[in-house]
Every structure is written in structure tokens, then in C-alpha cells.
């Protein structure tokens, strides 16, 4: 049997309309499912010209790897699970425990306000649980990733807008959104994403940049853009981890062009405080090369986003010309460091 005989051209042609599934970690996919469900519900209401839901109305989505086996919290704190379906379109409020692709959805409480949702999270969920509180009347969603400190999170949750408007996306619009993302999430060490990237070593009284900082940025940016862009599909390559540190996001949407689609690709790099100027410069150059190699025939722009956590933000004169010669848009976003004299990076070997 030859490669050509495995499937006919006709069969392969049927795959033209197949979109990539939601991507990223299981947790990332869960949050994308939450956004997608809420967005469809909001869009349906708007089409029917129904008034917005009350500000207090909430859906608490709780992620469980295998909800039928383990809810991830004490089942005595909720009602008996009732199986519901994504496409029923009836989930307007309540607590629902879902797996990563929403094939399993167990409703465990019918009525819920935003206050109830926060109380439940505070009293019944642990820090290790991933969950999202959809404030459906406010078109917003609060996202709690596993192992974010729950008390801190409740005081200042990571909140994303759920946009249902049809935005005309261009590289310029994406660049503006990246600026806003940086301001809210990474500009200071206490910003929403940055505060989880630095760990404090009490013995040595130093802050350290956590492992895989790019993946951290990617996860926050993924859910942020997914909330913003209703018609676009936000995609990450799952298989490129540990392959030269590539961490990317692509934003694909329909277009009037020949192929009917267009995409913008982003390569994310964090410049570390403990790396030498040369190592950081090389890391930035690598980001440019990777952004360039990542594009395909439908790519309108390739960005290299450097999140600059260096102590001294020295000029890197080779970078801009190199990016320009590769037709890559170079963006450098300054990250404020925790206030202390010594900042060391955490190096930990991965188990094999």
C-alpha cells in the first residue's frame, strides 16, 4: 500500500472544512470551552433581542479531569449531579462540573449569583482546582488557574471580557490588544500574570523567575485573546514544547482572499534576569527566526513578542534590523522586577 492509496483525494478533500480542535493544555482547552459556551449563549440572546441577564447572574464552571469519577471537591456541598449537554443552550446559571472537551457536563446547582459563586469558591474549592465564573449579564469571565492563590485571586481575579462583536481583525488591532494585555498582565511584578511568574525563596530572600515563563505568558494570552476575538480561532502548537523553546499563538480568521482565511502568528519569548546580555540577545534573535519560520501562505504578519524581565534593559541593537530583514514585527514589552537586590532564576531538571 502506498501513501497515496491510504486515502483517496476525495476523502482527503473532505478534511478541508475541518478546523483544529481547541488547543493548549487541558486547562487552557477547558477555559476556551467556557468562553465558547458563554459567547454562544450571549449571541443567541442578542439575536432574539432579549434583554441582558441581571448583573448578578453567574455560571460557575469547574474543571474536573474525569467528572464522573471525581468532582474534585466534596460532593456533599452540592446537589446530586444532573447530566446536561453543551448544545442544549439552556445553561444560563448554576454550578457545572465539566471535563476538558465539555463532553461531560454535570450540573450540581441550579441557581447562582456572582456572590454565591465566590462564596462557593472560597469555602468549597481548593487552590488546585481550575474554575471560571461567568458573569453572563456583564459579558465577563473570571478565570482561576490551578495553583493560583485562592485568597489573592478572590481579591483581584483575572477577568477577561467575552466579546460577541464582529471585530475586523488586522495586525494593527492585534498589536494594540497586545499592548493592553501587557499593561494589565505583565508590566509590573504584581500585574495579573506576572505575580504568578515570580516565586519567593524565603530562605535566601530572593524572588526567582519560575520555570517555563513563556508557557505562562502563552496560557494567559490565549484565554485573553480567545475572549476578545469571537470570530477568530486562537491556536497553539501543542507538540513544540521543548523544541528550541518555541511558544507560539496563531490567530486565524475568515477573509475575503483566495483561500478564504488569514492568520497572524506570534512567537513569545521572555528575557530572563539571570541570563547574560548575549544569551538574552540570542534568545530574542531565535524568537525572530521562529516567528518567521512559523508563518504559512495565509499569514499576514508574524510578531516576535519579547517580554523583557532583564534587570538592566540594555539596548539590543542587532535585533530590530534582524527582525526587519525577516519581515517580522518586533515588539518589546518591559516587565517590572520584584524589588530586591538579587534575582536568581530557578533551574530545575525535568523528570524523565
Amino acid at each position, binding site marked *: 500500500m*502506498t501513501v497515496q492509496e491510504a486515502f483517496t483525494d476525495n476523502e482527503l478533500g473532505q478534511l478541508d472544512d475541518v478546523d*483544529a*480542535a481547541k488547543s493548549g493544555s487541558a486547562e487552557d482547552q477547558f477555559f476556551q470551552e467556557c468562553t465558547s459556551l458563554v459567547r454562544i449563549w450571549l449571541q443567541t440572546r442578542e439575536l432574539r433581542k432579549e434583554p441582558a441577564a441581571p448583573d448578578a447572574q453567574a455560571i460557575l464552571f469547574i474543571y474536573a*479531569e474525569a467528572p464522573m469519577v471525581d468532582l474534585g471537591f466534596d460532593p456533599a456541598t452540592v446537589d446530586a449531579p444532573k447530566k446536561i*449537554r453543551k448544545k442544549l443552550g439552556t445553561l444560563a446559571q448554576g454550578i457545572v462540573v465539566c471535563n476538558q472537551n465539555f463532553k461531560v457536563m454535570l450540573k450540581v446547582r441550579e441557581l447562582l449569583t456572582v456572590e454565591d459563586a465566590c462564596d462557593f469558591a472560597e469555602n468549597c474549592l481548593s487552590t488546585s482546582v481550575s474554575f471560571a465564573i461567568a458573569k453572563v449579564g456583564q459579558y465577563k469571565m473570571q478565570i482561576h488557574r490551578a495553583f493560583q492563590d485562592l485568597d489573592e485571586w478572590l481579591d483581584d481575579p483575572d477577568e477577561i471580557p467575552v466579546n460577541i462583536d464582529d471585530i475586523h481583525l488586522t495586525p494593527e488591532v492585534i498589536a494594540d490588544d497586545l499592548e493592553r494585555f501587557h499593561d494589565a498582565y505583565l508590566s509590573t511584578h504584581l500585574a495579573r500574570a506576572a505575580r504568578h511568574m515570580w516565586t519567593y525563596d524565603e530562605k535566601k530572600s530572593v524572588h526567582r523567575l519560575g520555570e517555563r515563563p513563556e508557557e505562562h505568558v502563552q496560557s494567559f494570552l490565549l484565554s485573553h485573546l480567545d475572549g476578545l476575538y469571537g470570530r477568530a480561532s486562537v491556536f497553539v*502548537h501543542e507538540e513544540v514544547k521543548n523544541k528550541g523553546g518555541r511558544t507560539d499563538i496563531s490567530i486565524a480568521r475568515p477573509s475575503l482572499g483566495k483561500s478564504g482565511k488569514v492568520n497572524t502568528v506570534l512567537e513569545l519569548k521572555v528575557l530572563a534576569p539571570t541570563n547574560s546580555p548575549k544569551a538574552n540577545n540570542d534568545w530574542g534573535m531565535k524568537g525572530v527566526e521562529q516567528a518567521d519560520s512559523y508563518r504559512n501562505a495565509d499569514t499576514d504578519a508574524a510578531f516576535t513578542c519579547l517580554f523583557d524581565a532583564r534587570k538592566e534593559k540594555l539596548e539590543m541593537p542587532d535585533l530590530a534590523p534582524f527582525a526587519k530583514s525577516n519581515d517580522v514585527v518586533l515588539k518589546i514589552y518591559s516587565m517590572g522586577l520584584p524589588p530586591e537586590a538579587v534575582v536568581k532564576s530557578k533551574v530545575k531538571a525535568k523528570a524523565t
Partner: protein
Amino acid sequence: MIGDKPLFKKDYEKLQFLRWVLFLITAAEAAGLPGMSRSRLHALLFVSFASSRFYGLRPLRQRAQRTPHGPYYRAAHLTLGHLVFSGLVEVSEFKAHPSPKDLQFEGTFKLTKDGLMMSRLLRQTGTGERMYKFLLDLCLGTARAMATHDSEAEFDDENTDQMLAQDLTFRAALARSNKSLIIEEQVGDVTPTLKGLNSIDAYMRERSFVNSKDVLAAYQTLLRDRSKVA
């Protein structure tokens, strides 16, 4: 060595098989597929061994026993017994089978909370993580391919076995006169399944950004369509 006992190759292989089966049952649960029948488990094992090299993983078996009920692995049968008796998997709808030589029993297998915890522990190694990712992607693909047309959240359970029976390596093995169902004639052979996956991969990547799990889902979608006309 475990304690003062040497670890023999056959013991090591048993552990490898145990991990693969536990991961497969966990992955099915995580992908939202309901409890797994004995025959579904063996069919999924066959497809997983025929396709694992797509994820750079060596299959644990190069062939399966041929039975009127589809592929059968004696090792899987014994493994299920171990998993059930150790409380990592529970069995329902148990029915003894008259054939003492191979099938022996039918039943539906479901992960327990202890099984889920054990599975998480075994995923902490690099190989365990890669193996689980592959099996999860395979099951996510099954769930995606077998979602009914009018409702993507509904899982078309009845036709899943027919879809799996269309696997390219399984069809090729059935067509041969061998007593067993051959996956790889020689270790490292490119299976018909792998060829099919590679052709889908090349086709899809030329057109858009996809992950390997999308290729596994597309492969099973094409098998599903073949099973409808078969």
C-alpha cells in the same frame, strides 16, 4: 531490582502493559467516552499500537490474536484482572464467556478514583507524560469523530466499534491469512495506519495550523465515513 528481587524483562513488560491499559481507560474517561466494553478496549489497544509511532512511541505489541470478536490481547485480559482486583478499575455488566482459551469474560470497565490518582502519578515521568498525551489525543479524536451530526456533545456510541474496525492496519491484517493479526511484520515497520496518518498530516498542515490530535481525529472521521458505506 525491586527490594531484593531482580526485575525480569517479562515483569517489566507486564508493568508497561499495565500502564498503557490504565492510561487508555483514563484517557477515555477524560475525553468523555463512557465506560469501555471489553471488545472496545481491545480494538482501541490495536489502533493505539498501530498508530503510536505517529507520536514517536514504540508499540507494546506487534500483533494481536485473531478472534471472531475482533483483536484480542491475552496480556490486556490479565491486566484488566490486575486493575480490577487492585481497585483501580471497576467492572460492571460482567458476563463469563464460554471460551476458556481467549475471551473468558465480557464486561464494561470504568476508572475508579484510585485509578485516576494512580494514573496521575504515572504521568509524572517523561515517558508516562508522552504516552498519556498520545492516548488522550486518540480518545479525544474518537470523541470528536463520533459526535453525532446534530449535536457535537452527543457521543455516537453504537457506531464507534464499526469505525475502529475500519482501521487500515486492522483491515490489512484481516485480509492476510495469518493466524494472528499483524500490526508490524518487523519491529519498526510503517503500518498502514501510520501511512494514513502521515498522508492526512501532510494534507492538513499544507492548509492550516493543526496539532497531531487533529490528525488523529481526522483519521477517525475518515474511518467513520468508510464504516457508513461499508
